[in-house]
């Protein structure tokens, strides 16, 4: 088997990732050459049997790696900005907690700006505000980070921010309107005011993509923080429910796609949700357009690659990385159908494959997560949809609506007790280190080799190459 036949975009994605990762080290031409070499290396090692006509396809494939890498590298060079005072109107695209401050992204005539405000400023998503201050380079808002540490400037660039803004005054001009952000603000307010604590924290994450600090800290302790980030899990569960509900409807794929895209927009278009939605969309379209089911590995690569083409900074977005890594491992391990053993193996491999990335972001990862994740996905694929339904009577103001809500609160509490007990038994934490990173890269390489059916020897070599080259992607 060869990725040329089963997942050609996986070769392209691997080259693009290498090329973008090298943008901080090499010039664009050198990075695109290195990306082609990485792509070619991956292809040569992971191919067990070459399909007919491969000699004609190979140069095209390598060109498809190197040319976009060159242009993406050019785009990765941030626009230079001279410090400039500015006063005018902007609207708040997003706002979230950032240490002791509120991080607010502003859509303004000066571009998309990031501004760190004191919490009492109480900015609201969707508000039009009058601001004055100084436009500054984004990096100057944060202290210096060393290589391998979390880089806040990259994080915000992945969110589309161009410049920083040192705000000296901010005043609301218009309340949140009927934009998407206005709807999100209203929904958030309703959830915050109506629901019980644990249901509120989980539904806030599942419906708006925002994190309740207390619930987020609990999930970080348990190693299940990914459940609060809208990702393939949420989109997949909702998609499965919608498909089941619409199973007798003629245009079920069209309606399901529209509703799922609506959900992704409502939750703030997180990169992980967009990747999952792109993959689901390809899954729906494959049989219609190509007349055959699309390869899951290829679909993950296409969806992840399209997001990189739109915004290359997403390569450093932890949501994008964890989402793509998890999806690649899952698709590889459960190829040919889901069985209990494959499900178990996929859960373990995903935990090991993402622990390097997660520990680099959170400094440590709890070993309890390895156990808890075996139960968390089935448990939350039940808890979240049922809690969403149970919350509707209260949100709609029906009398007696609190009865199912408190029932759900009890179930979330029971999960919290179980998770806390597990953490007491398995209380070790694994600290971030280059070795852990390289180990995770080797797991990803090995899992992908298994998914591509490369054979044991080729798989081992690919895994070793991933181990030694993993540092490039850090």
């Amino acid at each position, binding site marked *: 088997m060869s990725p040329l036949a089963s997942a050609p975009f996986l070769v392209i994605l691997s080259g693009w990732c*290498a090329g973008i990762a*090298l*943008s*901080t*080290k*090499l*010039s*664009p*031409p*050198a990075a695109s*050459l*290195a990306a082609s*070499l*990485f792509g*070619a*290396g*991956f*292809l*040569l*090692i992971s*191919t*067990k049997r*070459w399909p007919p006509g491969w000699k004609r396809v190979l140069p095209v494939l390598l060109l498809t790696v190197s040319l976009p890498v060159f242009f993406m*590298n*050019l785009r*990765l*060079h*941030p626009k230079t900005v001279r*410090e*400039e*005072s500015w*006063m005018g109107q902007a609207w708040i695209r997003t706002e979230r907690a950032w240490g002791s*401050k509120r991080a607010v992204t502003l859509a303004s005539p000066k571009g998309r700006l990031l*501004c*760190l*405000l*004191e919490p*009492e*400023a109480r900015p609201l998503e969707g508000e039009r505000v009058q601001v*004055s*201050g*100084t436009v500054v*380079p*984004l*990096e*100057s808002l944060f202290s*210096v980070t*060393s290589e391998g540490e979390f880089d806040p*400037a990259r994080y915000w660039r992945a969110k589309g921010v161009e410049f920083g803004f*040192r*705000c*000296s*005054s*901010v005043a609301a001009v218009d309340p949140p309107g009927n934009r998407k952000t206005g709807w999100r603000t209203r929904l958030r307010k309703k959830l915050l005011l109506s629901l019980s604590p644990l249901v509120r924290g989980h539904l806030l994450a599942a419906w708006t993509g925002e994190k309740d600090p207390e619930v987020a800290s609990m999930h970080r302790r348990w190693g299940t923080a990914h459940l609060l980030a809208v990702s393939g899990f949420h989109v997949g569960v909702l998609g499965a429910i919608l498909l089941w509900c619409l199973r007798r409807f003629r245009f079920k794929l069209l309606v399901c796609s529209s509703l799922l895209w609506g959900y992704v927009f409502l939750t703030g278009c997180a990169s992980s949700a967009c990747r999952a939605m792109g993959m689901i969309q390809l899954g729906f379209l494959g049989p219609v357009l190509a007349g055959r089911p699309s390869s899951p590995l290829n679909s993950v690569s296409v969806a992840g690659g399209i997001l990189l083409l739109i915004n290359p900074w997403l390569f450093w977005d932890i949501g994008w990385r964890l989402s793509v890594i998890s999806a690649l491992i899952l698709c590889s391990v459960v190829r040919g159908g889901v069985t209990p053993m494959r499900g178990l193996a996929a859960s373990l491999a995903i935990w090991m494959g993402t622990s390097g990335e997660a520990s680099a972001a959170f400094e440590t990862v709890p070993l309890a997560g390895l156990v808890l994740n075996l139960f968390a996905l089935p448990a939350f694929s039940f808890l979240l949809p049922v809690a969403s339904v149970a919350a509707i009577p209260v949100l709609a103001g029906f009398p007696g609506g609190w009865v199912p809500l408190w029932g759900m609160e009890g179930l979330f509490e029971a999960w919290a007790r179980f998770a806390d007990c597990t953490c007491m038994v398995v209380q070790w934490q694994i600290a971030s280190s280059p070795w852990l990173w390289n180990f995770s890269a080797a797991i990803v390489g090995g899992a992908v080799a298994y998914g591509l059916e490369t054979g044991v020897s*080729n798989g081992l*070599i690919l895994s070793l*190459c991933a181990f030694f*080259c993993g540092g*490039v992607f850090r």
Partner: protein
Amino acid sequence: MDDRKKAVLFISAGLLCFAVAWGLVRGFSGKWPWGAPTGVAGPSWSVRQAMRATEETEAGPPVSAGKTDPAVPAENWIVYLTGEVQRPGIIEIPPNSRLFQAVEKAGGLTARADRDNVNLAAKLEDGGHIHIPAVGQTPEDGKNLLNTVSERMSTNPSAGRIDVNRATRAELESLPGVGPKLAQAIIDDRTANGPFARPEDLLRVKGIGPAKLEKIKEMILVRP
């Protein structure tokens, strides 16, 4: 060539690709054919941070958003800009701005402005009056040439110094050897005993000795 030999050849070629890529990264890392193409290129982080710290010390404390710390001025400065700018008049600018920022707010310089005799990098003061001269104009030519920036910058030796009778706590902290406690002690002293008449009066503040005074003497200003 049999299949086994072919497989070994392809795997060897793959490993060679990785090795060449690795060599490329090792050999060319940090060597750019032009300019500084990324946000992290140019001077190293440590050097850039040192440069930024120096700039911040020179420019005074950064302006923080919100209005929680009473020691940090959150209100904008007002300056009066006249002469060869597109829209002369009262301009509102963020604290610690420089002249080019005020000129930008006034719509930029006119074609007649004497660019060579205006220091656009000059630091401004709240409530100041800046006149941008025209080409060939001398300070005596215009009635309103109260305070041309070029003149002020060349003759005013106190530019950039910190007035200890008016400075905020954050501004005082930018002096070498002055931390939050000592800055607060200076403010408490001038509130309790009145303004300092001369730099030596700072010796009455607990924590400032002759050595420290000597160190900061050239950086401070004592206005009644």
